[in-house]
């Protein structure tokens, strides 16, 4: 996982993760387990207002048992009057949704300004430069949206079938 994917999976700010790791004296690793831990630390600090150290302790206790338990009491006062319960099943769902988004959407970005070759202001010349078949576009424009989407449906089914056969 990249640093950005880890931050997206944790639903936290990357700079916050790096700074918090420095404050806690932790080495930052960009992987799934760390993203899950940082995600819970972020939630507890941001939503419940606990200190970073307290949130880190809560996250460590809550995630110690893996996915086997559904609710964990991550902290309680000595009299038992007040306690902090983490709903692990709910957090796991939240984390998996963010992890999926990180893996599917957050593909590594190119550094700097995107390359724009071709002729400035001439979209057709630029498209031709990129190898876009303008005749294909012209023929698509002559079709109705319904015809275009029917063609997409057929092509997508073909691609799915080919993937299934080669898997």
């Amino acid at each position, binding site marked *: 996982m990249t640093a950005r994917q880890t931050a997206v999976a944790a639903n936290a700010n990357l700079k916050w993760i790096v700074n918090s790791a420095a404050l806690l004296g932790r080495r930052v690793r960009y992987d799934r387990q760390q993203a899950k831990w940082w995600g819970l630390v972020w939630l507890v600090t941001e939503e419940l207002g606990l200190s970073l150290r307290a949130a880190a302790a809560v996250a460590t206790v809550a995630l110690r048992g893996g*996915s086997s338990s559904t609710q964990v009491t991550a902290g309680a006062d000595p009299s038992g009057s007040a306690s902090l319960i983490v709903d692990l*099943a*709910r957090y*796991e*769902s*939240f984390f*998996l*949704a*963010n*992890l*999926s*988004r990180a*893996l*599917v*959407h957050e*593909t*590594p*970005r*190119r550094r700097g300004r*995107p390359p724009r070759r*071709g002729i400035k202001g001439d*979209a*057709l010349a*630029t*498209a031709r*430069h*990129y190898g*876009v*078949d*303008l005749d*294909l*576009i*012209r023929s*698509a*424009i002559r*079709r109705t*949206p*319904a015809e*275009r*989407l*029917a*063609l*997409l*449906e057929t*092509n*997508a*089914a073909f*691609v*799915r079938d080919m993937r299934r056969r080669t898997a």
Partner: protein
Amino acid sequence: MSFASMLSGLTKKKVRFVVVGGVAAAAHGSSRVTNDLDICYDAEAVANIGALASLLAGWHAYPRGVEKGLPFIMDDRTLRNAPILTLTTSEGDIDVMDRIAGVGPYDAVRQHSERISALGVRFRVLDLPSLIKAKRAAGRPRDFDHLPELEALLALRKNQ
């Protein structure tokens, strides 16, 4: 498993949504083949979130790209807490978003959409200029790679 079944399910459940992404691009004339349906839904209406969540739960939605069998609750709370959900379902892959980068939340997306009839369903798709804005704002290599074709489409349509 098809776009038709997903679109039909969404409209039958009266979900307020606009089709964005690759399917919207194909509706405007893009030749790129996409395998997932991207929608922007109205996240302000509680009933809409509930309708979409129950539909996705009925389709056994599960986060895409993640190993199977992990605990995942598909309900309105999950939908509310995740601005983008990338899911695989019994009807096909679907990405649900509460806003579109470069365009805004559902209301802005709807304002920049047009109604079409296709695959036996009537639904809204993001218009071509807004789709180009969204691709540019997303900033991913695959979105940038799609821009020359979409900009050529827009230029050819203007010349018509």
